[in-house]
Structure formats: C-alpha cells, structure tokens
C-alpha cells in the first residue's frame, strides 16, 4: 500500500507542473487568434466608434501588455480562481458549473452505455468470427464510426421526432410544462435519448472494434486451450480468461476518452440544442471570450491528468502482472 501512496503522490506533484505549463501554453494559444472580444462585440453591435472599442478593451483588461495579462491570469490560476467573463457578466466557475450537469448527463450516459454495449458486441462478434452475426456487428460498427455524427443526429431527429413523433428533438426539458418529481425526471430522460444514442453509437463502434480485435488475438492462446481442456464452462472461459486478458487496450482508450467527457461534444450539443460545455467552449472561441476558454481548457486538462492516473491504477487491478512503480 505505501508503494501505491508513493506512486500517487509523485504523480500528483508532477501533475501540478504539467497543469501549470499547460495553463501558460493555453494562454498564448488563445491570444494567438486574430481579433479580440472587443472586435467581436463591435461586429455584433453593427455600429461602433473608437470609444466603444477602447472601453471594451479597458474593461476586459486587454489594454495591458500581454506579459502583465499572463501574470494576472497565472496568479489567479494558482489560487484556483478561473476568472470572470466580462461578456457574460459572470464568474467563469459559475458558467462551467451551470453547464456541467447537462454535459455529464450526456457524455457519461453515452460513455457507460457505449462501453458496456461495445465490449458485449465486440466479444460476441469475436467469439463468432466469420459468422453472419459477426459480419452484421462489424458492418453496423463501421458505419456508425464512419458517418458524421451530426448527420446521424439529424437523421434520428427526422425519423423519431419529425416523422414518428415519439421523442423530443432538442433541449433538455419541455420548457414551460412545469413538471415536478418523477415526471420531470422522465421528461429529461426522454430528451436525452436521441443525443445519447447519437454520441453512444460513435463510441460504441470504437469499443466494439477494439474488443473484437483484441479478443481474436487472445482466444487462441495456450491458457485458453488449457481452460477448455479443464472443462470450464464457455461463459467462464470468455469472461474470466479471455476478456480479462483482452480488455487492456479497451481500458487504455476508455481512460483516454473519459478524460474528455467533461469537454462535452460540440456537435451533439449544437444539433440537439443542449446547453453543455462543448457549446460554451465553441462559442467562447468564436467570441474570443478568453477567460471562459482558458477555464474550460484548465478544467479539461486537470480531468485528463486525473483520469490518466486512474487508468494506470486500474491496469494493475485488472492485470496483477502490471505493477505500479514510483
């Protein structure tokens, strides 16, 4: 156990430096784009004079030299202050917290469903490699993977929402319906079906293919033959012997994707009009809302670092041959 504690503490110390370096890099990255928030707002207003732009730059602190702005930003970052969006007139932290529930309910649900479904389908396909069910799963997976995600979303809307009228096309709730309790939950769940399916299909395709390929490699190994020779039931061979050995690449990719869940999905959130973090980020780019953008980058980088650490720990749980080394 102290071994693990040492490992974790060392990784956390490293992580702090990585995140600070990322923050500095992000700062220069967002400032490298042409134009600034004052220019955007002048463009939106449809009228401007010199004073208008000057006032905005002053308010946003853009009239200060860049190194000074960096200093202000970094001193806030180390105090865990994400700054203030002058455009939206709210602290960035509040903006993120507003959007987080929607994003997580979308991405987490899609992720979990995709992981379970993908591993199950991949296993099924691999164990029946060469049969019609394998072909069907592979073809569906490949199609889901190769089709642009927004197009799938629009087609699902057309089918289930416009033509059949079964499911709402966008939003997170029936606005103005005034549902409470169980009804409100059901209403929200209904609104999530189409976006979760769209996003989940894409993830699922990835896991299906990974699992299938990985199992095909493992299923003919000697220890599997031994297990069969021992007369173990087939389900036990698959779940304990094959899957446990084949799952590592899936965990690697899942860990990587889990780190990005918090970033949301720009396309899904746009097509289904969900007020999530992906859209917030996308709009912040267009509006050059530096503080919001930096806040999202920072949050995402923290989560990615944490999930990388978790992934390493899970490796050693799943496969005891892998040890954590400080």
């Amino acid at each position: 156990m102290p071994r693990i504690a040492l490992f974790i503490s060392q990784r956390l110390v490293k992580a702090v430096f990585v995140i600070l370096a990322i923050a500095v890099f992000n700062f220069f990255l967002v400032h490298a784009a042409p134009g600034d928030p004052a220019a955007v707002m002048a463009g939106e207003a449809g009228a401007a004079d010199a004073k208008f732009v000057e006032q905005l730059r002053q308010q946003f602190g853009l009239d200060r030299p860049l190194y000074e702005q960096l200093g202000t930003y970094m001193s806030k970052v180390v105090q865990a202050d994400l700054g203030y969006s002058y455009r939206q007139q709210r602290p960035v932290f509040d903006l993120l917290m507003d959007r987080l529930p929607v994003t997580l309910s979308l991405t987490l649900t899609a992720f979990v469903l995709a992981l379970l479904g993908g591993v199950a389908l991949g296993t099924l396909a691999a164990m029946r490699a060469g049969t019609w069910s394998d072909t069907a799963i592979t073809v569906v997976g490949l199609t889901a993977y190769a089709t642009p995600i927004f197009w799938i979303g629009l087609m699902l809307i057309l089918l289930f929402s416009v033509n059949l009228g079964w499911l709402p096309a966008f939003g997170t709730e029936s606005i103005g319906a005034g549902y409470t309790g169980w009804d409100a939950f059901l209403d929200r769940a209904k609104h999530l079906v189409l976006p979760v399916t769209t996003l989940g299909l894409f993830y699922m395709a990835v896991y299906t293919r990974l699992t299938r390929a990985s199992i095909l490699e493992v299923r003919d190994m000697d220890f599997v033959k031994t297990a069969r020779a021992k007369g173990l039931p087939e389900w036990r061979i698959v779940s304990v012997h094959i899957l446990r050995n084949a799952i590592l690449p899936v965990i690697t990719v899942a860990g990587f994707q889990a780190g990005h869940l918090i970033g949301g999905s720009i396309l899904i959130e746009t097509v289904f009009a969900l007020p999530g973090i992906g859209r917030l980020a996308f709009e912040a780019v267009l509006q050059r809302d530096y503080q919001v953008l930096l806040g999202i980058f920072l949050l995402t980088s923290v989560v990615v670092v944490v999930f990388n650490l978790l992934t390493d720990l899970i490796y050693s749980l799943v496969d005891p041959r892998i040890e954590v080394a400080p």
Partner: protein
Amino acid sequence: MSNRLRHFRQTLTAAALAAALAAPLALTVPGVAAAQERGGTMNIIVQPEPPILVLGLNQQGPTQTVAGKIYQGLLTFGFDLKPQPELAESWEVSPDGKVYTFKLVKNAKWHDGKPFTAHDVVFSTSKLLMETHPRARATFSKCEKIEALDDYTVQFTLKEPFGPFLQAFEVSSAPMMPKHIYEGTDFKANPANATPIGTGPFKFKEWNKGSYIHLVRNDEYWKAGKPYLDDIYFRVIPDAASRAVAVEQGTVQQTQFNDIETFDVPRLKGLPNVEMTTKGYEFFAPLSWIEINTRNKPLDDKRFRQAMMHAIDRKFIRDKIWFGLGRPATGPVNSVTRFFEPNVRKYDFDPKKAEALLEEAGYKKGADGTRAKVRLLVMPYGETWTRLGEYVKQAMKRVGVDVTLETTDAAGWVNRVSNWDYDLSFNFVYQYGDPALGVTRTYVSDNIRKGVMFSNTMGYSNPEVDQLFAQAAQTNKDEERQQLYSAAQKILVEDVPVAWLLEMEFPTFVDKRFKNAVTTAIGVNESYDSVYMVKK
C-alpha cells in the same frame, strides 16, 4: 415597385379601418372579448444567444428582439417610418428645428414599481447612453442641453438642426433606462444587470443560459388591459437545421432575421401552420454590398469598380442565393427608407461592358486570360455568404479577374476589415430610417478611422459628398434634404465606393394563431403588448 406600393397602401387602409372599427366595438361590448383574448405562451427563437439583456448596454440584434419587450423608447415607427407615440404621448418641434419637447405618459412604471418620469429620460440620454451606446452618443452629443421641464416633460435643445433627431428615440437607439438603479454606479458592472428592469409589457423572469430566456406578463403595465400574452420564451437553438425542424414541429411560433437559412425558406413557406412576412424591417432596411478597399490596386480605379458592378448579376444573387428575398440594390440608400433617389446611373448585368471598362482602365488580358488578381475575404455570417463568395469568384473570372477567396471567423473578419487589411469583403449595415443615421457613416471622409468597424473602411473620400451629407443632416426641411441626398446618391453611384448588391429582406415566420406580431417598422423588436393568441 408600383405593385409593392399598392400593396402597402392597401395594408395601410386596412389597418386604419381595423383601428377605426376596433375602438368603438371594444367600448360598446365590453363583455365579449371578441378577438383579443388574454392568455397564451409564445416561443420565439433567439439566435445567437445575447450576452446580456440590458438594452442600454448592449445593442446586438438578438438583444434588441428580447429586450424590446422589457425596455421601451419614447417613440416607435410605422411602416412609413413616421413616428408614433410610445413612452412619449406627444411631441413638438420648434420651427427652427432646434428644440424638441416631449410630453410623457403619466402612468408608466418601472418593473420594480417606481414611476417612470422625465428624470429617467434625462439620465438615459445625457448620462448612461452617452457612456455606453455608440449610436446614441453620436446623436445626443448634438444636444446643447437636455432638461426636464417638469416630471412629465422633457426638452432637448440642439446646437444646430439635425434632420433625423426623432428617429433617435426608437427603442434600440435610445432605450429608457431606470435612473434610480443606475445613477452613480459603474453601469457595466451594476449587479442589477442580471435582472433587467424596464417599463415594457413583459418582465424578466428567468434565464437558463444556453437554453431559454423566460419573460412573463407585466400585470402593472401602463397600457390598460395589455399585454395579452401570459409569457414569452426565447429559445436558443444553435443549429440552423434544428431551427427549421422546430418551426415545422410547431415547437417555436416565431423566427426572425437570419434564424432560417435562405435555402430553407421556400420549404417552410409551404407549411400550413405558419405565415411568412418580410415586413417589419423598414427601420433597419439593411443593404448589402461588396466592400472595396479603394486604397489597393486595382481597386483604386473607379472604372475597375464600375466594371465589377456590370460583371455581377444581382438578380441572380437574389433569386438563386437568397431564394427570392430582397431587391437588387441600385445605390447607397435602401428604397424603403427616406430620401431614396431612383434616377442614378444604372449598372445592368453586362459582362461585355465590364470588359470594355477594364480594357479602358488598362487591365489587358494576360497570357492566361487574367487581367488582375484580387482577394475576397468572405464574411463569416453563415453559409449564404459563402455561396455568394463562390458566385462572385465565378462572375469575376468571366471578365478576366482572378478572385482568391479567404475565410476567417467573426473576430478575424472584424479585425482585418476594420484595420483595412483586405481587398474585397462583404458587409451589410442597417440604415435606421434615415440616411444621416445609417448611410452617411459609410461614405464620409471624416469617418475614415482605423480600427473602427462599420466606419468608412473603404477609405473613400470625396469632398463634394462630405459637403452634401453634412448639409443634409443640418436641416429638417424634407424637400431640401431630398435634393441634397439625391445629389449625393448620384455621385456615389458614379464613383462606386462599394458594389451594392441587395436591399435585404429577412423572413419572419409566425404561427398563424398569433396575431399582431409585426405591426411597425421595427417589427420583431416591438414590445409585443398587442400580440394575442387565437384559441380554437
């Protein structure tokens, strides 16, 4: 043209008749609330989502549409751009055109219950808007003094006459802001900005960022019995295809401006549940053009710019890119606004004439058939403009001019155009009902200001035009102004400082159950106090 006018006159007559009939009816049979029933919820698209809703601090298009229900101006404007009473019940202009006196309605209240008085008007126009609103700053800096004669009378004294002064009192040009909330504060950092307080028929209830803005009926509204609707939801739907679906499904009951992409318009027009109108944009009367940087070769040559006018088929643009919305533009003033001059040099679509002009200017065809090369920075405001860019490239190729398309996003576009780092671009600006407010700024040389968007970014300079525009603004005699503006328009059309494309029209789709949505020249930005829902 004449057809449009006739239609216009018919509508006016009908409106007058309806008004004449409605008034006595309502008085004589109070028990039978025939058509204008209370109740109903309207869902309206708002796109893009406004940053804040305080109209005095932000005048972005979507802000105007939402905040126009919360805040009010002293005046509003009919389709003919004549002023109509809003918070001012009457007004007087002195014969020398320098003193404007407004009598305010006496029973208007802010949403927090405080009375609306002349002091709010003085504070808004002389303090708050002077600080925060570029257009209002330009207008009210022409005032020598602004004073409250009593609680319900305001007087503006101008340094010299200014023709379109009344136009400056439209709600987005001069929204009335509450003095008791803003006086002595840092306007932009005032915590009250999160909960806007106006005098309008709808009150701010809730804003679920990224999703919807909820306004509810103001029960204390100063017009008795109004508004009719219980509440309005402004829904944020960022994807254009999803917006079209929302209209088809009836999830939303209104869209405006650019909400619906032009290629979706013909399809939605055929829907049984909605009606489309292009009225209600007369006050804005946008005009689109190819912005030309006249500092750069070969664009500094007038003949080259004239050739562009002949090379581009504006009718094609209207029919095939804007799907029939708009009218080919003939000059700098939109024909639905005041002081339009039809008798100007005509640029019919004629590639041969264009080539002749290019030859004359010395741009001979090279070995590869190219006369000149220019860059075109495509305006990043939706797919339609991208298609326009592709068309212009083709059309110019036909007369031997090689156009390179450049793309950027909104921030990059403003940055490059306002700093004169472009050859050609697109642009469209609102005209605000009078050339002195919306046209002059584009062409006069004292508005050549680097770093400022929507100024004279082309660098066009003609002392004669400067003189004519200056004179025309300084008088309030319409006949005199018409002469001066006509002269200016003739010169401009000859000089082609920009290549005008379309007098733009926007489609407003309204659910057929909702009536009175578009009743004035500011259309969807109106207060909606007379909008009602027919329940079946």
